[in-house]
């Protein structure tokens, strides 16, 4: 950077780099994430991520709980996508115990998963836009998310962290009128998303703030192990729902939106398009809801066979994986969570090369981190 400065500045003015603590308490770090920035003016020379302020020891905690007891805590990882976390752990235990999940339960899971993805993306949309300064969008996003929370409340009895699925299936059928309410909500949401796209996608200021900012190439994105919309924004077609199919996803017809440049704008577009795809999936699932049993044949005491299992789902932030090592008891010997936010956050260094503080805020927003998941 010094070499680029005109010679008179180098001789007369001695400039020093400045260290700035962004976080752990900062409105745009979406929680207790801390970035130690080395700055030249407002330009970022070096970025040092510090995580762990929200570490709760969930992986260790899990070793002292039976499989059923442990389920609710994983909701607290990505607290904006609780149902998806739940699907991950439940799926992992089912894979470990080789349990059969009834088809109707799988359909119900798909519906709730996609609703949760919508809720998470809407929350991302709201906060990301607020970070870039479009304050009204915050309220629009939260407003659209509210009916989803109501639907969850009606079905699960809980809004944010519903402890959605038991191991082996689903608990209850959708309550009376739920399906209609859900359809009504989806019908209302579609034009709203169009509205928000006209508000931001075509907005010159929004485009100037996001296009060409926080670029990460296809190769780098793969090398850093990014996943989810953060990866797909760079044009890599990897979606667990399609690539490593699970649950009832192979039965549905949906597209995987891809970006081209891997900048903030592409990641934004990816998520916006993904919301539309989620609506498509939910509608198909509601239409094709099969008859039958909801609860599978899950044993009361779950003694897992010796061995290890890895199960991933496409969470709202990316690929969420649970790795369980079983020693033959009813508790996991070791449980590891591959949380998408944590791994996506690694890409921040590459994305923020030469960015300004204002860009940094946009980039963090575009990665869509949730610190509960980063720190576990």
């Amino acid at each position, binding site marked *: 950077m010094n070499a680029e400065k005109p010679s008179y500045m180098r001789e007369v003015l001695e400039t020093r780099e400045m260290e700035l603590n962004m976080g752990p308490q900062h409105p745009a770090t979406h929680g207790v994430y801390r970035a130690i920035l080395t700055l030249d003016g407002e330009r970022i020379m070096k970025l040092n991520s510090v995580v762990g302020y929200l570490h709760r020891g969930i992986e260790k905690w899990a070793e002292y709980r039976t499989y059923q007891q442990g389920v609710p805590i994983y909701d607290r990882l990505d607290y904006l996508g609780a149902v998806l976390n739940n699907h991950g752990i439940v799926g992992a235990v089912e894979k470990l115990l080789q349990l059969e999940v009834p088809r109707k339960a799988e359909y119900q899971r798909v519906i709730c998963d996609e609703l949760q993805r919508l809720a998470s993306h809407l929350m991302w949309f709201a906060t990301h836009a607020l970070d870039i300064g479009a*304050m009204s969008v915050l309220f629009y996003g939260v407003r659209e998310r509210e009916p989803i929370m109501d639907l969850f409340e009606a079905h699960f009895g809980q809004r944010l962290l519903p402890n959605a699925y038991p191991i082996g299936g689903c608990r209850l059928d959708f309550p009376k009128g739920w399906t209609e309410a859900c359809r009504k909500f989806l019908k209302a949401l579609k034009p709203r998303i169009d509205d928000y796209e006209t508000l931001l996608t075509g907005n010159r200021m929004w485009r100037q703030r996001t296009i060409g900012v926080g670029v990460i190439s296809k190769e780098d994105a793969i090398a850093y192990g990014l996943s989810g919309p953060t990866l797909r924004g760079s044009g890599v077609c990897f979606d667990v729902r399609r690539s490593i199919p699970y649950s009832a996803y192979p039965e549905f017809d949906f597209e995987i939106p891809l970006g081209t440049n891997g900048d903030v704008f592409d990641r934004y577009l990816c998520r916006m398009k993904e919301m539309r795809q989620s609506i498509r999936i939910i509608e198909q699932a509601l239409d094709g809801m099969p008859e039958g049993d909801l609860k599978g044949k899950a044993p009361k005491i779950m003694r897992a066979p010796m061995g290890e299992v890895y199960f991933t789902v496409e969470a709202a932030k990316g690929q969420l994986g649970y790795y369980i090592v079983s020693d033959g008891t009813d508790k996991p010997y070791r449980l590891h969570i591959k949380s998408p936010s944590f791994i996506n956050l690694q890409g921040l260094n590459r994305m923020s090369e030469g960015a300004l*503080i204002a860009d940094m805020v946009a980039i963090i927003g575009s990665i869509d981190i949730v610190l509960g998941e980063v720190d576990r």
Partner: protein
Amino acid sequence: MDTLLNLWSTIESWMLAFPVVIYLVKIGILLGCVFAVVAYITLAERRLLGFYQSRLGPNRVGPLGLIQPVADGLKCFLKEDIVPLNSNPLLFRLAPVFAFFPPFAGFAVFTFALPWVMPNGRTYHYSVADVDLGVLFIMAISSLGIFGLILAGWSSGSKYPLFGSLRSASQMLAYEVPLTLSVISVVMMAGSFRLSDIVAAQQAYKFYFFIPCIIGFVVYFISSVAEMNRTPFDLPEGESEIIGFHTEYSGMRFAFFFVAEYANVVFISMLAPALFLGGYDIPFVNDLALYGAHPNIVSILGVCSYAAKSTIFALFVIWVRATFPRYRYDQLLKIGWLVLLPIALANLFVVAGIKLFLLK
């Protein structure tokens, strides 16, 4: 009625004996009105933003939340005033004053209507000091306000406010020149720096200056939004990025910055109609006095017309805040120097041409 008039003439003779009293009374009335408007524009903005954002906004304190500004002021007044150890205490205490007084001082040169005529024939002007170089004075005094921001950030002894003050310094470089150039086009049309002359010229030409200076008006609007530090140019504040130049301020000192910001909004919203929208001229009516209206009615209607124009301008500013994202500070510099400055200069030439050849 007669006793009232007699009383008035006694007061008037006293005031004429000590002319400074007239000024003090006028200043008192003006400051009272400005403070009330500033207080209620904060409420208006919060309520309006509420409606834009599908929520209600503050509506608990008094009917429709009308006492909310009082509650806000009281709250700020009762808060602890903290001066950080790391700061430069003198400048830290001085900065809010620097930010606070320029917009209020600027109101002095406004003329709000045609003069009021007393039954005894004496006229009173709706202005504290309608000086010859009113526009120049406004330009000078409103640029002073930025010092408050710069000093506040610099003296806080903290890094985020420092960024705020650096940003506001660079922001000033971006907007000040196009702003002044767009105002100069109006001055050129009117041939005077005096605000009442500018309005009178618009009345005489029978068109408002935003018609010949339409480009200038747009440039003025954009750069005045930057001067007010409001979205999309609220960079010194940048609440989601650097929290702002006033991060370290609390209580009443913070309230001073807050009031100064809204006073600036009111100030610019009143300046723009005077320059571009005919000020207290009543639109679509050439001269009310021709219809036999009493001059006092004309002046009251003039105040209303001025207030309506300013309100529309202020509402527009609030609307902009509810709609747009924030620019980056290097982008603002680019806009200022590469877009606004050339078109402001072009506007200057166009207006000069109009003035020279079309309005001979």
